[in-house]
């Protein structure tokens, strides 16, 4: 078995020679890089270059056709079942439950994540993203920007070690984008790992490391 190496604290994700293909369509060939604690890794590339696919591979939702992805937590390689406890994801292809309201959604995700007495944390997250006053409105009645804020709250609920953001500023107003940028910087400053897939010029500036996918 290939060793992933070790590092003292936080989550490190290294990926080597990763390729993804769907039947005959090659999404990308041989992508390598590393996301380390305290930094934001930005994945860029034109539409269809596979940014979201790479993000899904890195967070463990998809398996690569070729290559190796290592998730290392506090120096130890993390098993798939354990890995999910340490990550939060915001992506356009992932939705929360439209039939539930914001509070019910967060309560549900808190319970399946094994968080006890999580109501206080749910309120904090809703306050953080500016949805506290709309917490009882069914998500079906939300604007796309409000739904995006709820997805961000869901991703932050369990205070994950690593955050995967796929076009996180989409549908957010300028104030929301500004807040998110500052928040992401704050997360990196306290040693969290952030992986960001985007083509937005402002969001690209959040990152220290860049991986560019060819079209």
């Amino acid at each position, binding site marked *: 078995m290939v060793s992933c190496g070790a590092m003292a604290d936080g989550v490190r994700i290294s990926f080597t020679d990763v390729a993804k293909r769907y039947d005959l369509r090659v999404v990308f060939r041989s992508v390598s890089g590393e996301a380390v604690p305290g930094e934001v890794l930005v994945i860029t590339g034109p539409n269809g270059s596979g940014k979201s696919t790479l993000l899904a591979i890195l967070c463990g939702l998809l398996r690569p056709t070729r290559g190796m992805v290592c998730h290392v937590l506090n120096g130890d390689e993390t098993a798939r079942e354990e890995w999910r406890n340490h990550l939060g*994801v915001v992506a356009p*292809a992932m939705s929360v*439950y439209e039939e*539930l309201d914001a509070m*019910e959604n967060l309560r549900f995700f808190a319970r*399946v994540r*094994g968080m006890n007495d999580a109501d206080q944390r749910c309120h904090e997250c809703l306050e953080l993203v500016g949805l506290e006053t709309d917490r009882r409105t069914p998500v079906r009645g939300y604007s796309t920007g409000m739904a995006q804020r709820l997805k961000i709250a869901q991703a932050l609920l369990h205070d994950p070690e690593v955050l995967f953001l796929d076009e996180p500023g989409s549908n957010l107003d300028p104030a929301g984008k500004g807040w998110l940028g500052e928040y992401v910087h704050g997360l990196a400053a306290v040693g969290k790992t952030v992986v960001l897939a985007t083509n937005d010029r402002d969001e690209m500036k959040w990152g220290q490391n860049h991986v560019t996918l060819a079209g």
Partner: protein
Amino acid sequence: MSRLLVEALAVAAKDLRTEFRTRVALNALGLFALTVLAAVSYTVGPYRITAEDRPFLLAVLLWIVIFFAALAGLDRSFVKEEESHTAPLLRLAASPTAVWLGKLGFNLVLIYFLMAILVPLYCILMGYKIQLVGGFALILVSGGYALAVITTIVAAIIARALTRGALFSVLSLPLLLPLLIFLIQGTAGAADGTAETVTSTLRAVLSMGGIMTIVSAMLFPVVWAD
């Protein structure tokens, strides 16, 4: 309470809450069951079948209504997760076993709810007299469980396929057919008072349910993750 049970209950409660608000699966199950029940009771009725044939033929009709109503609605919980793009977050947040148990619990509630309304109505409208009521109730409970276990794992398998509707029936029927035959024989036995038939049916149905539970528990994490 163990974490697994708490997670599974959360999944089942979430499904019940969303189902209560949309009623997609309930409408599919209920409409099919009530339409067929109305058609059968109107065309066949309680008196068109001879007393000698009644226990067996009415058992056949009863289980046909229950099975096909179940096929119409029990795939919804997984299909809906995929169609509404909520499955990836559920995959990341909950353990596969908790998801399976939660979805199984949800399907059990649906099938037992359907049976609780359908079976008494059927017995009244069709004049179906049951000699061994306790045995009949056990057959319904064990049959409902086996039906839910099989449809839950098949629904998980087909949820990510493109031709979901057709696949659900195609994959479910070979697994459900032996169960259907056993349940019809057992119900007929309960109706005409043959305790041995009821006992052997219960043994067979519980064995099938048990085997499918073990197979599903082993298979589901692979199906759900990949």
